[in-house]
């Protein structure tokens, strides 16, 4: 029926979509969304292996940790985006290229 492989494939698809978002979006929030996608794809993987890979609940616990970490990362990220917006008047990452050589 729906086995491990299906979860893993969905996970890969979501991860690649997340990578694509991170690499190509102009909007800073969009990059953060991509980051979330990658993290959640990793969560899917973990949950998949936790459900189908034996009885151990290690995976579930790890997922909770990952969710908290993603939360922290997004918090800090959004704070930076807000600061950038205040300085440059926009969230387009191409506007914040002033720190360069």
């Amino acid at each position: 029926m729906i086995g491990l492989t299906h979860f893993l494939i969905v996970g890969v698809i979501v991860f690649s979509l997340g990578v694509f978002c991170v690499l190509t979006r102009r909007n800073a929030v969009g990059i953060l969304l991509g980051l979330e996608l990658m993290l959640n794809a990793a969560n899917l993987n973990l949950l998949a292996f936790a459900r189908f890979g034996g009885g151990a609940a290690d995976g579930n616990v790890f997922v909770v940790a990952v969710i908290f970490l993603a939360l922290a990362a997004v918090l800090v990220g959004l704070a930076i985006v807000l600061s950038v917006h205040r300085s440059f008047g926009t969230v387009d990452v191409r506007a914040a290229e002033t720190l360069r050589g």
Partner: protein
Amino acid sequence: MGVAEPSLACLVGLPLLGALGIGLGGSRLQRRIGASGLGAIASAPIAVATALTVRALAQLMANAPDARILDVRVGTWLAVGDLQVDATLVFDPLSALMALLVTGIGALVCVYSAGSMRDEPGLWRYFALLNLFIGAMLLLVLAGDLLVLFVAWEGVAFCSYALIGFWYRDAANANAGAKAFIVNRVGDVGLLLGISLLFWAMHAAGKPTTDIGELARHSDVLAGATLFGWSVPALATLLLFVGAAAKSAQFPLHVWLPDAMAGPTPASALIHAATMVTAGVYLIARLDFLFVLAPSTQALIAWVGAVTAFLAATAAACQDDIKKALSYSTVSQLGLMMLALGVAAPSAALFHLTTHGVIKAALFLGAGSILHAMRNDRDLRHMGGLRRWLPWTHGAFVVAAAALAGIPPFSGFFSKDEILWRALAADAGGPLLWFVALLTSALTSFYAFRLVILAFHGDNRSEAHVREGLHESPRAMLVPLSVLAALAVSLGFLGLPDVFGGTDRLGTWLSPTFAALVPETAAPTSVAARYLLAVTTAAVAFGGLTLAHAMYISHRVSSDAIARIAGGVPLRWIQAGYGFDALYRAVFHRGVRQLARASAALDRGGIDAGVRALGASVRGIASATAAFDRLAIDRTIDRSGGAVLRIGGWIRALQTGSIHVYLYIAVIAVAAAIVLHLIGPR
């Protein structure tokens, strides 16, 4: 060694003290008490010295002939290493003669000066120098040690310099004084070298001394000493003769004496006629014991003397300046004295020294009297017929001139005749020497009477205003003049030789000084020959008189005839003294200047150039170093700095500031890490 006589120290010291006193207080004194008073005070030391001399002379005469020495040791002057010089004064017959001459003529000159220089503002200076001179001259003739004599030698040279250049504001006078001193200095080199040589010889023999008595006693030691193969007596006497020749104005060191006439005439009478110039003759006579050991030097002395005598006499005959004529005459007569010394007849030389001293002093004082009347115009061509206005002066002058000419029975005849006789009998070319001396005597007579005639006889050639002022001199001047003239007449008795009925008192008097050491060459005594010679001498004297008369009174002989006899030699050149001054100017003055210029050029071109080159090279090194610094070092640093900047630039380029780029790099790096991990470590 002789009898001690402390008053000798006073004899020398009083004039010196007088000089000091007058020198310090004289100007005030002169303003206070005037010229006559000053003259009296200035003459006092000399008068006392004269009295002391006479007293000492009497003492000597009272002793037996071989015990006639008085001496006094005033103290040790120098004590250096092996040399000990005592300031000893020795009064023996020779010094007695010289001292009497110095003090006697000195006193007369003092009296005369008070009269002739009455209006001179610097009179106190003059008297101080005169006293100093007499003191120094007395020290010279009484010196018992050669080094003390040398000090006195320099002392009289200084006084001569100061008195010649007395009117120093005129540069010509000052230069004449300097000339006298410098030429004397040249001689002093020889004198000092001679003294040193004698000391060295004595020292080598174990008796280091310069005392004259000691040297005389050890003359045998000196006789045998040699220096690099040269005989010490020959060398030493040669050097000493150089000194004597400068002081006694022999050729070629005579050039200072004609110029010395720039000084006051009484000073010339004392210094350049009777005393200082005779110091050279005195030196040779005093060291007679040494000179007899060197016959070659004696021959040289005789010939130098003869040549000097003759050439100076020719020059004297051509002078228009009365004082210059007398000075050349002095040179000539000194030459005759040297001739006498050269033929080993020192007493004849000293006889002539005495008579000439008196005669020449009289002539100079007479000339001074003439100048006093002529307002100091010395040119004979402006004189003439002066006997009308100056009868006394004329009388004295004629007498003295006759004595100089050698007219018998005046003193000059006897002394000159003695010299001629000794010259004839000499070894080294005697007859030739005699002939030269005879010619000189003829010339002497000629120029002596020429002076008399041109000055006193004939028509007066002065300008009207001068003629109006002609007057006889005051008594202060005439008395000394007359005294000297009288002596010039009578002094012949002193040396009257046996053949003429005299006893040669002077020769006998002096013989202890000479005979005790070496017996004087006895002249051959053929009476007939002696008389014949005397007649010749007298004839020559009268011949000169005749020629002068013919030329200047009866005008039968003209100067053209003389010029023809002289063989075409220009009389102007003879008058200028045979061009010695021009020669010395060319060699020494120009030579020294050229040497100075060459040295300066060497200094500029060589040394300065070297220093500048050194500076330039240092500057070159500095700029090279700077260039190196600039090109090499700076460039290296600049380049390395630039390289760092460039690399930094490249690395900086990585910092694009673009988030997308950073994310791409992060993803690719993670992917690469995963791949590498999967491939796995082997």
